[in-house]
C-alpha cells in the first residue's frame, strides 16, 4: 500500500498524536519536586514554548495536508479509507470528497490563526490549552471525514468534550455559568443523537451512511414513520449544534464569555452542525431517497430565515462587542442554512462559498473584540462611551474591514456570497421571503456594526483614568486578525476558481450515487440492489427469526 493511500487518516491522527505528546509535556509543576523558583520558572517557560511550538507545528501541518486532499478530491474522486481494512458497510470508513476537503481546509486555516492569537498569552490562563485545542481539531477533522453515523457521534463527543474544556479555559463566574448551560444542552443533544442512531440501526441494520442511503430508499410503509422521526431527530441534534432557531439560545452566552482564541475556533463549531445537515440530508434523505426523500424541505429554509432575522435582531440589541459577534455567528448560520435549505445546486454552492467567509470573518471579529476590550481598560468591549484607545487607528481600520466583510458589503466575500445566494433564490418559491429577509438583515448588520464602531472609536471622552489600564494592541495580537481578513480578501481574489469548486461540490452532493458507489463498490451495489431492505441484507438479523421479534418489525421476517 502506497503511503499516499493513508492520506485521508492523517488529519485525524496528527492532532490526536500531537495532543498526546502535549499532554506528556504539560506545563504544570511536576509533583514532589522542589526546585528553586527561578529554575522552575525557567523550566516552565521552556516547556511552554516547546508546547506552543509543537501545537503550532501540528496545526500548520494540517494546512498542506488539507490542500493535498483538496487537490485529490477536486477532480470528483471519493477517497475511501477503510479503517483496519474492514470493507464497508461492516467496517468504519473515512471518506474524502470535495465537501470534506473544503471543510478540512477551512478548519486548518482557522486553527492556525486562532492558535497564533492564543500563544500570545491566553494559553497560560489555565492548564492543557494546547492539548484540548489539538483534541478539538481531532474531533472536528474526524467529524468531517467519517462515513459512519455512529462514528460521527463519537467524533461529536470528542470535539464537544474538548470544547467544554476550552470554553471553561481560564475560569471565571460568567464562563462557568455559560459553560454549564452549554454542557447540559449538548449532553441532551448527544442523548437525542443516540436515540436517532439507534432507531435507524434498528430499522435498517446498518450505520454506514452510504449503506443507510441505499436502505432508506427502500423503506417500507410500516417503517416509514420510524425512519422519518429518526431523520427529524437527527435534524434536531444537528440544528442544536448549528444553533438553528429554537435551539440557538446557548450560543451567545457561551461564545461571548469564553476566551478570544476559543471563540474564534468555535466559529467552525456551528458549521459542523451545518455540514452534518448538508451531508446527511443530501446523502440519506436526498432526492433519490424514495419514501423519505426531501425530509427537511418544509423545515430548513423557514427556520433558517427566522434564525437569520432573530440573530440579526440580537446583534442590533447587543450590549458588548463579543455578544454582538456571537449573534452575528447565529445570523451567519441562518444565511448558510438558508442556502442549504433552498437545495438547488446554485444555492448550495453559494452556501459553501459563504461558509469559509463567515468562519474567517467571525473569528477575526472575536479576536479583534478581545484586543479592543484590552485597549479600553475597564470599559472592556461594552458599548459605552469610553476612553480613547491606544492604537485606535489600527484597531479601527481592522474593525472597519471586518465589519464590511460581515455585513456583506462589496468588495469583500460576504457580498459575493450573499449575491450568489440571492441569485440562486430567483427560481425558488421562497423568493420574496429570501430577498426581503437577506436584504433587510444585511442593512441591520450594517446599522449594528456602524453603531458599535462609532460608539467604540468616535464617542470617546478623556476622563481621568489609570494610564496603565489601557493596553495598546501588540503586533502579535493584530497579525492573526489581519491574516484572517487577508483570507477573506483571498476569497474575493480567487472567487472564480473557489466558486467553481463550490458549485462542483454542490453538484457532487446532489448526485449521492457516486458517493454510495465509491464506498460500497459498484459490484456490491448491483449485488445488493435486488435484496434491498430484505432480511438477506442483514444476515445476522435475518437468520434468526426469534431475534427479530422486537418492537420494530423487519420486512419479510415472521417471528
Amino acid at each position, binding site marked *: 500500500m502506497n503511503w499516499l493511500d493513508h492520506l485521508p487518516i492523517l488529519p485525524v491522527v496528527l492532532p490526536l498524536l500531537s495532543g498526546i505528546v502535549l499532554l506528556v509535556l504539560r506545563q504544570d509543576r511536576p509533583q514532589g519536586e522542589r526546585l528553586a523558583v527561578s529554575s522552575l520558572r525557567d523550566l516552565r517557560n521552556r516547556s511552554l514554548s516547546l508546547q506552543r511550538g509543537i501545537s503550532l507545528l501540528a496545526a500548520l501541518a494540517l494546512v498542506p495536508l488539507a490542500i493535498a486532499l483538496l487537490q485529490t478530491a477536486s477532480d470528483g474522486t471519493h477517497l475511501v479509507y477503510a479503517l483496519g481494512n474492514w470493507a464497508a458497510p461492516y467496517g468504519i470508513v473515512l471518506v474524502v470528497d470535495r465537501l470534506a476537503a473544503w471543510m478540512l481546509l477551512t478548519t486548518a486555516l482557522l486553527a492556525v490563526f486562532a492558535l497564533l492569537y492564543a500563544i500570545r498569552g491566553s494559553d497560560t490562563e489555565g492548564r492543557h490549552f494546547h492539548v484540548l485545542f489539538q483534541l478539538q481539531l481531532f474531533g472536528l477533522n474526524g467529524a468531517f471525514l467519517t462515513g459512519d453515523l455512529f462514528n460521527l457521534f463519537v467524533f461529536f463527543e470528542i470535539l464537544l468534550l474538548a470544547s467544554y474544556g476550552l470554553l471553561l479555559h481560564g475560569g471565571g*463566574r460568567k464562563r462557568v455559568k455559560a459553560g454549564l448551560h452549554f454542557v447540559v444542552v449538548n*449532553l441532551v443533544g448527544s*442523548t437525542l443523537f443516540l436515540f436517532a442512531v*439507534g432507531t435507524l*440501526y434498528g430499522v435498517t441494520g446498518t450505520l454506514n451512511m452510504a449503506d443507510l442511503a441505499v436502505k432508506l430508499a427502500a423503506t417500507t410503509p410500516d417503517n416509514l414513520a420510524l425512519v422519518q422521526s429518526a431523520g427529524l431527530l437527527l435534524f434536531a441534534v444537528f440544528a442544536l449544534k448549528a444553533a438553528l432557531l429554537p435551539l440557538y439560545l446557548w450560543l451567545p452566552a457561551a461564545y461571548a464569555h469564553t476566551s478570544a482564541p476559543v471563540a474564534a475556533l468555535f466559529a467552525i463549531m456551528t458549521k459542523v452542525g451545518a455540514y452534518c445537515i448538508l451531508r446527511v440530508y443530501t446523502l440519506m434523505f436526498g432526492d433519490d431517497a424514495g419514501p423519505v426523500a426531501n425530509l427537511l424541505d418544509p423545515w430548513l429554509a423557514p427556520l433558517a430565515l427566522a434564525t437569520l432575522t432573530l440573530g440579526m435582531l440580537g446583534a442590533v440589541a447587543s450590549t458588548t462587542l463579543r455578544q454582538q459577534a456571537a449573534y452575528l455567528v447565529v445570523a451567519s448560520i441562518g444565511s448558510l442554512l438558508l442556502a442549504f435549505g433552498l437545495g438547488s445546486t446554485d444555492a448550495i454552492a453559494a452556501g459553501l462559498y459563504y461558509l469559509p467567509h463567515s468562519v474567517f470573518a467571525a473569528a477575526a471579529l472575536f479576536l479583534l473584540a478581545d484586543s479592543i476590550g484590552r485597549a479600553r481598560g475597564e470599559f472592556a468591549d461594552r458599548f459605552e462611551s469610553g476612553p480613547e484607545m491606544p492604537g485606535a487607528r489600527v484597531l479601527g481600520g481592522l474593525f472597519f474591514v471586518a465589519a464590511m466583510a460581515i455585513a456583506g458589503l462589496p468588495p469583500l466575500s460576504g457580498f459575493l456570497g450573499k449575491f450568489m445566494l440571492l441569485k440562486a433564490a430567483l427560481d425558488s418559491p421562497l423568493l420574496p421571503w429570501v430577498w426581503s429577509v437577506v436584504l433587510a438583515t444585511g442593512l441591520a448588520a450594517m446599522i449594528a456594526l456602524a453603531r458599535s464602531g462609532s460608539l467604540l472609536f468616535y464617542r470617546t471622552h478623556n476622563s481621568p483614568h489609570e494610564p496603565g489600564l489601557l493596553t495598546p494592541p501588540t503586533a502579535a495580537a493584530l497579525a492573526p486578525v489581519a491574516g484572517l481578513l487577508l483570507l477573506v480578501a483571498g476569497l474575493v481574489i480567487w472567487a472564480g476558481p473557489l466558486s467553481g469548486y463550490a458549485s462542483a461540490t454542490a453538484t457532487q452532493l446532489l448526485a449521492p450515487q457516486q458517493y454510495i458507489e465509491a464506498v460500497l463498490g459498484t459490484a456490491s451495489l448491483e449485488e445488493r440492489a435486488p435484496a434491498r431492505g430484505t432480511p438477506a441484507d442483514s444476515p445476522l438479523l435475518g437468520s434468526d427469526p426469534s*431475534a427479530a*421479534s422486537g418492537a420494530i418489525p423487519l420486512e419479510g421476517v415472521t417471528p
Partner: protein
Amino acid sequence: MEALIALVIGVLTAGGVFLALRGQTFPVVLGLTLMSYAVNLFLFVMGRLAIGVPPVISAAAEGYTDPLPQALVLTAIVISFGMTAFVIVLALKARAELGNDHVDGLQHEEDRPA
C-alpha cells in the same frame, strides 16, 4: 419482555427529562444520567431481544444475536460515564463560583442568609 423493556425505557426517559428541567444542578445531573441509561437500553434492544443465542459465528448455532449494538452500547456507556463525571465536577465548580446550586446562579429570597 418487549413491552416491559419499552416501559422501562419510557419511564427512565420521562424521569430524565423531568429532572433535567429542574432548576438545581444536582437534579439536572441525575436527569442526564437517567436519560443516558434510557438511551443505552434503547440502543441495546435495537439489536432485538434474544436469549441464549451466540453473537459470533458458531457451527452449532440455530440463530444469532446482533453483536453490534453491544459494542455500540459499550462505547456509549464509556462516553456517558466520562460526560457525567465532567458535568458533576462542573456543577461543583458552578456551585462554588456562583454561590448556590441553581443552574442560573440566581439568589432566591428564601436562600439568602438572613
